[in-house]
């Protein structure tokens, strides 16, 4: 629960999470057998 980077705002935290989610989806799509 307390793993957030304290210096980031709520908005920035969500932006990072959204980018990470998109990145992981793209990686999954590129994975062999997908």
């Amino acid at each position, binding site marked *: *629960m*307390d793993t*957030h*980077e*304290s*210096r*980031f*705002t*709520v*908005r920035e*935290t*969500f932006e990072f*999470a*959204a980018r990470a*989610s998109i990145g*992981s989806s793209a990686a999954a799509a590129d994975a062999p057998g997908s």
Partner: protein
Amino acid sequence: MIQLLDLVSCADTIIGSKTVRGISGGQRRRVSIGEVLLTSPRVLCGDEVTAGLDAAVAEGVVHALRQYATATRATVVLALQAPTPDTYALFDNVVLLGEGHVVYAGSRDALEANLTSRNFPPPAFGDFADWLAAFVTDPVLAAPQGMQPTEVPTLEELSTTGGPSVAWFGSLDQRQHSTAGSATVQVSYTKVGDALRSSEYLTGMYGVGARQAACSRLGATM
């Protein structure tokens, strides 16, 4: 996401830490949930996600999860020890567990009639969710007037499945997804936290529905 979780007022506030002042504990909890929702889970499991939050914030969190479930046709499974009446009313389905026994599993709307048919009529007044917590803690506490303690069935006798809650937890999800419903499910009371934590498709504090892993585990089609 910021609007869904009612974080507009603190959107540009830093998260903070123990030494640096930032958003409140309740807001921090909602940020954590938001981060999970941004992964678009098809199945989201939460173990006591409202612990430590005041009643209004807790209801807001569950309401946001319900909105997510409705909008995305995902399934949200929450284990809550003591939901408030308003929070309880947000759920479509309820699983009552006592000492690992499934005492009830089905729609929230049918729960009251089900218990009444089994000689446990809920009180006409008062907090129904609170009464349920007492019921699965010790049926004697919820027994109707006139019923002798020796006549009150045990939780094992009230069990609808006779099986362990962990196994049943799996079949619950399978059933939910076999109908492709956008249900929000409450799994509550003892042992469920252990089940959630031991499930391989959970990460961190919240259960993130890693789709393939959940399908593999549950044999479900999502």
